[in-house]
């Protein structure tokens, strides 16, 4: 039994489910196109519906990229505000979700760039922004949104996975989050991260190898 079989509490699935990940075709329904068109014409109600529809994915992605939950909340806000501002330039034939992920990618990148330029600030930021150090009773946690199976022993494993993800570089982390969590197709990831498919491939390979090694260490340390 390999490390994944030991760590996963559920029976292994076969090939990835069909959908955008398998076929590369967009899965958003026709309603998204209609809403986008109306939002482009200035319909705030339509845009609000788009926000409701996509906020979960964007928040989940950003939360896996930045350490602090309130920062993830703020950045998610920023994504939708920027998306509204950029709507006039969005071509409806493109995939709205991918476009949102691209804005999220830029928001996370800009957020990382805005650190204090002096080296002395990093300890301060790391201490503050390390999710594990923040009083979980104080920060508005999304724990009420977790599915029942996560409420089981999976919580501890989730923490280990998040901790391992945090040890990857941002580029490697993003590649594995977009592919293995968000389920984006290769070409979509290349578009979001503004790089070639070859680069996505090598980042994914490295990230998975590294994660496997990190999780093995944590598992063996029990």
């Amino acid at each position: 039994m390999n490390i994944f079989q030991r760590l996963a509490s559920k029976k292994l699935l076969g090939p990835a489910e069909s959908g955008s990940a398998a076929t590369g075709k967009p899965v958003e329904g026709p309603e998204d196109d209609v809403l986008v068109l109306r939002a482009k014409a200035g319909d705030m109600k339509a845009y609000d519906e788009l926000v409701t529809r996509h906020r979960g994915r964007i928040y989940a992605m950003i939360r896996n990229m930045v350490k602090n939950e309130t920062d993830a909340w703020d950045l998610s806000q920023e994504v939708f505000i920027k998306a509204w501002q950029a709507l006039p330039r969005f071509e409806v034939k493109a995939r709205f979700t991918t476009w949102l992920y691209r804005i999220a990618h830029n928001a996370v990148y800009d957020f990382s760039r805005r650190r204090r330029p002096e080296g002395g600030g990093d300890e301060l930021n790391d201490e503050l922004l390390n999710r594990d150090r923040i009083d979980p009773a104080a920060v508005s946690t999304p724990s009420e949104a977790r599915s029942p199976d996560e409420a089981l022993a999976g919580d501890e494993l989730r923490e280990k996975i998040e901790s391992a993800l945090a040890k990857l570089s941002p580029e490697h982390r993003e590649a594995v989050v977009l592919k293995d969590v968000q389920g984006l197709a290769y070409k979509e990831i290349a578009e979001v991260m503004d790089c070639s498919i070859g680069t996505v491939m090598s980042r994914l390979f490295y990230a998975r190898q590294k994660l496997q090694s990190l999780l093995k260490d944590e598992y063996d340390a029990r």
Partner: protein
Amino acid sequence: MPDEEMLALWVEDELTGESATTVNAWAASQPEWLARREEARQMKTLLRTHLPVSEDPPYADFFNSRISREIAREAAVAPAAATATKGVGAFWRFFLPATAVAGMALCFWAGTRVVPASHAAPQGPLVNIPVSAPLGPYLYTPEKGVTAAYYNSATANAEVIVLDGLAAISDSFEVPETAAVEEDPAPSATADIETPSR
């Protein structure tokens, strides 16, 4: 041997039809690639089992309403800023109805109560802001039970934010010895900045 891109798609189970059949046949004798595909599948399973694809942000309703408010606020500020900086073009902006601006100011102010109603502290006089008040800042208090209220204090010539519902700082907190020392505000000339490549 299939090209790199085709192999990448095959590893991720994104290859279909004839291409998939061709690569499957080739990979049957490539244990390394079969192992790689299996690892990819297992990693996907592990991560998707324990990390959500979608997770509603906390205070989801407020999440949406704040976005709407910020969009409306920026739309209102943009013409005002243009008036301040542009010359002849600014003349036409005076036709923006003053009532619309005042109405938006009232809405923005109402929107600055960032805590959901169920957690709101008792309303005080600070909340009753006249319609003609200038656009206030947004206020966000992530801690449950904490509310923030803003006003422009003419008497103190300051902008004031009053926080209520905050836990008191422990009496055991002592002012450190060096707390009152001023620092040189100039940044270090030799500081390095990490510039991640895109």
